[in-house]
């Protein structure tokens, strides 16, 4: 009997451990049928598959290293959202994140967009990171789950900025497109 109870508890705990926070679930459900919002989910199984990939370049190696301990990624990204609407969703999402007990890591507010990064720690290690971003016509809610190394991620972003000019150019194109949409 005791063994059985133990097994059931382990099964239950396993379920909890791999499910990403309530905030993401809420927004996934809310925008599940809204086509203006792109929903992305990368499972822990997929991440474990990534660890078997071979890196060809130094950048790739760095990238694979940074994601090697991640267990999940979920994102809701809205494009072509009205400015007022985007602001409203941003404020709502920030409130939801705060309510769930995430700690604020940083908030950046400028003319272009607002970004808030919050984390959940467990024993000195970052276990989950949530990013909420709301800007002109854009909204993003992003959650990373697993063992997160901020140094690696930040280094990755800056090295990509130097080496990955291709990526940057693509990003710039995206922004210009959005500006055009605004003017229209």
């Amino acid at each position, binding site marked *: 009997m005791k063994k059985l109870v133990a097994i059931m508890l382990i*099964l239950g705990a396993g379920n909890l451990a791999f499910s990403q926070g309530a905030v993401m679930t809420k927004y996934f459900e809310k925008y599940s049928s809204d086509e203006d919002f792109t929903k992305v989910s*990368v*499972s822990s199984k997929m991440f474990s598959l990534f660890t078997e990939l071979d890196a060809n370049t130094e950048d790739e190696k760095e*990238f694979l290293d940074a994601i090697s301990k991640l267990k999940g990624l979920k994102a809701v990204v809205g494009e072509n959202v009205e400015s007022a609407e985007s602001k409203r969703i941003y404020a709502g999402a920030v409130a939801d994140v705060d309510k769930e007990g995430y700690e604020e890591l*940083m908030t*950046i507010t400028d003319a272009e967009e607002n970004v808030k990064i919050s984390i959940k720690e467990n024993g000195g290690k970052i276990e989950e990171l949530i*990013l909420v971003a709301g800007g002109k016509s854009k909204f993003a809610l992003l959650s*990373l789950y697993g063992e997160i190394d901020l140094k690696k991620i930040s280094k990755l972003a800056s090295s990509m900025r130097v080496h990955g000019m291709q*990526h940057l150019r693509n990003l710039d194109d995206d922004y210009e497109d959005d500006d055009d949409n605004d003017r229209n």
Partner: protein
Amino acid sequence: MESPIEQLIEKYWNGETTLEEEKRVKSHFVENPALSKESDYFRFLKKEQEVKFNPKVKKNSRRTWLSAAATVAIGLITAALVLQESNKDPFAIEDPQRALEETRRALMMIGSGLNEGQSYALELTKINKAKEELKEESEAL
């Protein structure tokens, strides 16, 4: 000439006795235990007949518990699996290449946010440093 009981026994071993004759054979041996080795056999038969099914024999309670528990466990596990299946993420990316690309984009977004924050923090410390230097100089004067 064989005695009638010997004839009966012969008949018994051939399997030709009627129920009535069989009873006579059995009682003959039980009543005369010293007659032959065969009497042992018949006494054994009589003893076996006395063994009766006793429905009040205690069932192995541990076993009962275990089988009940196992049944419940199977039910629960099935329910858990079904639930998990229904909870399966409808937006999960199946294509590894795309998943990798999305992960890269997400990390870029988080990373550039972090870097932006860091550069602000750096500028702030610079300003603070300059302020302190000014203060020190003004105090020195």
